[in-house]
């Protein structure tokens, strides 16, 4: 046990918790004013729902005794035996490790909500989130961080490129596939109703991400410091590259572009944070901003309505970051070498983990959405969608008077 590590991870857990309301604002500003509360609710309510799922069973399935590299056991059900003695992390209390991980299990399903915004039933979204944390998030988390097969294979994911970003993006793609497009898509303008809110949300995300990435070192050590440094550099780089690219592409530098670019950079560096040098982080961020800008244009080509670009930013950014980890990882930082440091095999391992994550998370999420659609219906009816989800699903209006 180490007091400095404990103090540091306590603060990091709080920082990661703050990302979810930050995400609520980031997404909330991007929808039309009649859907802002429902969109905020999709994130905020998961602080409640996903936390309960996590402490009842999710944590145990993720970090319980390994069964065949596939899933954790039931030893920690209802936090049985999770106390102040060290657990998976040697120098901090088990309960602290559990609650730090809990914040990840909250924000990951919240990320998906960008894809089904403005048209899903709240009840369906809640049921989906409960099931998804149990059958998609917990296995992914176990495979990568709980000693499962991806960890055994040697796949590197410092803070959740696969567990958090690719998994939520694959689910987002499934959501867009099953739900279909919003009414009027392609005919009406879907214009963000409050970009200052979105930029504030992006700022909170950037702030919280220091806890997310640096805290993933699970100790107050050099690895945490380097992760903090690479995180900030990558976010800065991607904000710049996104704005420059859109300036050429669409004629003007936009605030939404700066905010989106920063988030894209944060996503891209997440799997790599503790494994690469600061200058590698700069390159990962610069390219991350560009490929994610390309990513958001994909939906216009393929005509799926991923309303708030979860696939474009978290899917493309997360995949790029995972591959980039295999390219730039350096023994000097995280103890493992990648392609540029003489270990091309690491890139292949990274590629396998990317492909497996997309395939598994997309297929299971697709099945969940279809099953829920069959049992209770996923989508609000036309009148409710027209009126907006705030009033139809929650009996509230965001802006009155």
């Amino acid at each position, binding site marked *: 046990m180490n007091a400095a590590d404990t103090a540091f991870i306590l603060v990091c857990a709080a920082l990661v918790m703050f990302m979810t309301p930050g995400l609520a604002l980031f997404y909330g500003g991007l929808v039309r004013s009649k859907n802002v509360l429902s969109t905020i609710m999709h994130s905020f309510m998961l602080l409640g729902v996903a936390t309960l799922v996590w402490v009842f069973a999710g944590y145990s399935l993720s970090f319980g005794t390994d069964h065949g590299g596939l899933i954790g056991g039931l030893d920690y059900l209802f936090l049985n035996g999770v106390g102040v003695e060290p657990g998976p992390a040697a120098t901090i209390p088990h309960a602290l490790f559990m609650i730090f991980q809990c914040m990840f299990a909250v924000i990951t399903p919240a990320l998906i909500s960008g894809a089904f915004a403005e048209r899903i039933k709240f009840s369906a979204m809640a049921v989906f989130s409960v099931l998804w944390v149990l059958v998609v998030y917990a296995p992914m988390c176990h495979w990568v961080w709980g000693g499962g097969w991806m960890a055994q294979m040697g796949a590197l994911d410092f803070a959740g490129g696969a567990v958090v970003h690719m998994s939520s993006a694959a689910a987002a793609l499934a959501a867009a596939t099953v739900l279909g497009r919003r009414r009027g898509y392609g005919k009406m*303008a879907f*214009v*963000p109703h409050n970009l200052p809110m979105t930029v504030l949300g992006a700022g909170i995300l950037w702030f919280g991400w220091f806890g997310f990435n640096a805290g993933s070192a699970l100790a107050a050590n050099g690895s945490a410091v380097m992760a903090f440094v690479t995180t900030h550099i990558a976010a800065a780089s991607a904000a710049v590259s996104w704005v420059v690219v*859109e300036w050429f*592409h*669409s*004629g*003007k530098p*936009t605030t*939404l*572009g700066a905010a*989106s670019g920063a988030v894209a950079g944060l996503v891209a560096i997440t799997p790599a944070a503790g494994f690469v040098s600061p200058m590698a982080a700069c390159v990962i961020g610069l390219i991350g901003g560009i490929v994610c*800008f390309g990513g*958001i*244009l994909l939906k*216009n080509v393929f005509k799926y309505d991923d309303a708030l*670009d979860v696939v*474009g930013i978290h899917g493309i950014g997360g995949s790029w970051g995972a591959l980039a980890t295999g390219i730039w990882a350096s023994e000097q930082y995280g103890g493992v070498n990648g392609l540029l440091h003489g270990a091309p095999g690491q890139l292949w391992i990274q590629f396998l983990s990317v492909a497996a994550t997309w395939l598994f998370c997309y297929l299971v999420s697709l099945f969940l959405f279809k099953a829920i659609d069959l049992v209770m219906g996923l989508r609000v009816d036309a009148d409710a969608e027209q009126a907006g989800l705030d009033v139809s699903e929650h009996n509230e209006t965001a802006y009155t008077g």
Partner: protein
Amino acid sequence: MKKLEIIIRPFKLDEVKMALTDLDIKGMTVTEVKGFGRQRGHKEVYRGAEYQVDFMPKVKIEVVVDDALVKQVLDAVTKAARTGKVGDGKVFILPVEDVYRIRTGEMGPDAI
């Protein structure tokens, strides 16, 4: 009596209000409105997707004045609100049958 519906650029509201109060006009009603005329709208781009925004924000001022004052009002509005570019706005002039002041019960021009 005439009612003037004066539609102007939003940032010209203060200047037009001052010009009208200088003519001793004692009241007006102001509404934020949207619409388009020859100016049409403008283009907005969000994450690479372009949208044509047709309705431009404008301000509508409604005042009721004696017939004799109409010309002066139009001159004052022109002086205050004109930029010379498309989109300066319009004034609609309508006849008013009568006016009633709720507090005193006065009717006609006295009630303006």
